[in-house]
């Protein structure tokens, strides 16, 4: 190419400011319950759960190239194992996390099997897993079929302690999971992940451990969604299998990630925020709300497949939380022939690992 060498940078000035911003936001969120009403604290807890769900589905689909419509299985299992553990005498708050660990452990053997499926077959195969798991959980006498049961042992804590504890647990879980994901994407695995995202076959041919990397993302996503399910149980107390194993949860995840920006770290968070706002404003409209969600997902997948963040990022070169390196080509290289890349979503990323 040209003699002028490209500039390699990690993050931008904006991303350094964003780093400080993140710390400030976290502190603010941690102190927020002091100023918020009980109802608002519950809503914020829901938001944290949504962020977890979006980030985890994005980890799987956006970075691992694995679109699953059966992720509700881990959400349901997260809640179910928590019920089971609490019933066995474990402290309910401890049970939430032990449950998520079990979900992660369970997802490993599932991954051995399911990751051999491709694309649509994987997507719908996961749905079969979710449907089967739902039916099997129904067989548990403790759950009493679709009647369900409750996390009664949480009642040993009074209402406000419970609310605050769950809030902080959700906040901490969200931050921890995002940090894990961020660390993964920034570390050596991140290079592999981006290579797979851009071109799986090429990645495999240069020695990237495709299956191993995908499995890591699969287990992480299962664990994270398990945490989300357990947290949701803690706020809702009641466990009805139909609610937790509902494909709607995956629909929410898909909506958040598609709208926010699939394959971008910030996009999933943005999507969760938007979803949270839409739910707050329109959730009461019932079925039209769901129609709207489906239609929006449909329109985004057709017209704006990179989502809001992906589009903005491409248009303006934004990058707040930089997960990779960027190569800024010196202007002399960018001759007209070199710049016209067809905007195929999978390959248009100019971020190089």
């Amino acid at each position: 190419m040209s003699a002028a060498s490209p500039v390699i940078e990690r993050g931008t000035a904006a991303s350094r400011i964003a780093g400080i911003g993140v710390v400030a936001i976290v502190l603010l969120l941690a102190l927020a319950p002091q100023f918020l009403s009980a109802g608002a604290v519950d809503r914020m807890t829901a938001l944290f759960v949504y962020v977890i769900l979006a980030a985890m589905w994005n980890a799987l689909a956006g970075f691992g190239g694995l679109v699953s419509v059966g992720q509700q299985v881990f959400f349901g299992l997260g809640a179910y194992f928590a019920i089971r553990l609490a019933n066995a005498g474990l402290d309910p708050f401890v049970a939430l996390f032990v449950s998520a660990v079990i979900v992660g452990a369970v997802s490993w053997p599932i991954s051995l099997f399911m990751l051999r499926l491709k694309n649509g077959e994987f997507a719908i195969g996961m749905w079969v897993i979710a449907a089967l798991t739902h039916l099997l959980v129904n067989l548990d006498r403790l759950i009493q079929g679709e009647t369900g049961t409750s996390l009664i042992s949480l009642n040993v804590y009074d209402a406000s302690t419970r609310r605050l504890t769950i809030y902080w647990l959700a906040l901490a879980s969200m931050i921890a999971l995002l940090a894990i994901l961020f660390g993964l994407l920034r570390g050596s695995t991140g290079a592999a992940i981006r290579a797979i995202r851009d071109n799986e076959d090429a990645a495999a041919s240069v020695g990237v451990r495709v299956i191993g990397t995908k499995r890591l993302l699969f287990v992480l996503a299962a664990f994270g969604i398990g945490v989300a399910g357990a947290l949701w149980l803690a706020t809702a107390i009641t466990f009805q299998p139909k609610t937790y194993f509902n494909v709607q949860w995956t629909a929410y995840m898909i909506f958040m990630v598609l709208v926010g920006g699939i394959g971008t770290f910030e996009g999933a968070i943005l999507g969760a925020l938007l979803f949270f706002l839409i739910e707050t404003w329109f959730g009461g409209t019932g079925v039209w709300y769901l129609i709207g969600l489906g239609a929006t997902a449909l329109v985004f997948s057709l017209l704006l497949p990179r989502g809001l963040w992906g589009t903005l990022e491409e248009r303006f070169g934004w990058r707040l939380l930089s997960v990779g390196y960027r190569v800024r080509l010196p202007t002399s290289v960018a001759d007209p022939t070199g710049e016209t890349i067809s905007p195929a979503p999978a390959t248009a990323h100019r971020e190089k690992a």
Partner: protein
Amino acid sequence: MMNQIVQGILLGGYYALIACGLSFMFSVMRIINLAHGSLAVLSAFALWLLASRFHIPPFLGLLIVLPLMAVIGWALQRFLLERSARGGALLPILTTFGLAIVIDNVLFEQFGADTRSLAPFIGSLSYDSWEWPGSLYVGKLAVIIFVTAVVLLGGLQLFLTRTGLGRSIRATSEDPDTAGLVGVDARRANAVAAAIAMVTVGLAGAFLGMRATFDPYAGATQLLFAFEAAVIGGAGSLWGTLIGGIVLALAQTLGAKIHPQGFLIGGHIAFLIVLFIRLYTSGLGLRGLLRLSTGRTP
């Protein structure tokens, strides 16, 4: 026992019917349509509407609904799938999933949560049965469904191997670029294939409504049945779908015999077992679990 096996086999005809459109679309366009089940339920609701509001019996209503389904299939391909398939293999999954959510909830908005059935509109056909030797009672409807499935699969096979349009579709499914270079309009072939697939979906929806009940959210279950039957039947010919449907139905029958809630569980487990065996014996990267070799002559 013999009776249950016969019922299971006949039920397999229904599963073959709902599965064949799914695997047909997959083998031609490499797209799994997640709105498949919802579209079948849409067809059932359309027939129900015609029957309950306009007193058009379902079998007559098919003359209206099936052409409509063909148009829907054509439009689906032209306006949604073609566009989203350009964005890679993952996008059509999301697009069709979004579509399924829209269809399900629009149906819910229009028809409410009540379960419906087409059985009241087909007279005694819904419960009439023939007595076969060995004091076997087989429902007339179940036999009609099974025969329809066989005729449909056979017809589809003949169409694909014996007609120019069928050859165009097969050529497009094998290599769309080269198909264009020999003069095949690949877009048209795909749209025709989608239209045909939706006609089979419409037919499946009709029989779903006649043999059982349905509600706006019944699509997901039908999609899973279709997928399971298609995968179990697998990479053979279209006839594999029939075998897949029968295996699925027999597994469900067996499951129900073991446990009162075992019907669905039996089917899912059979699916996973077959999947397991196929994954670990074929050793293939499983590029086309669902891929039919449509080129096989009957």
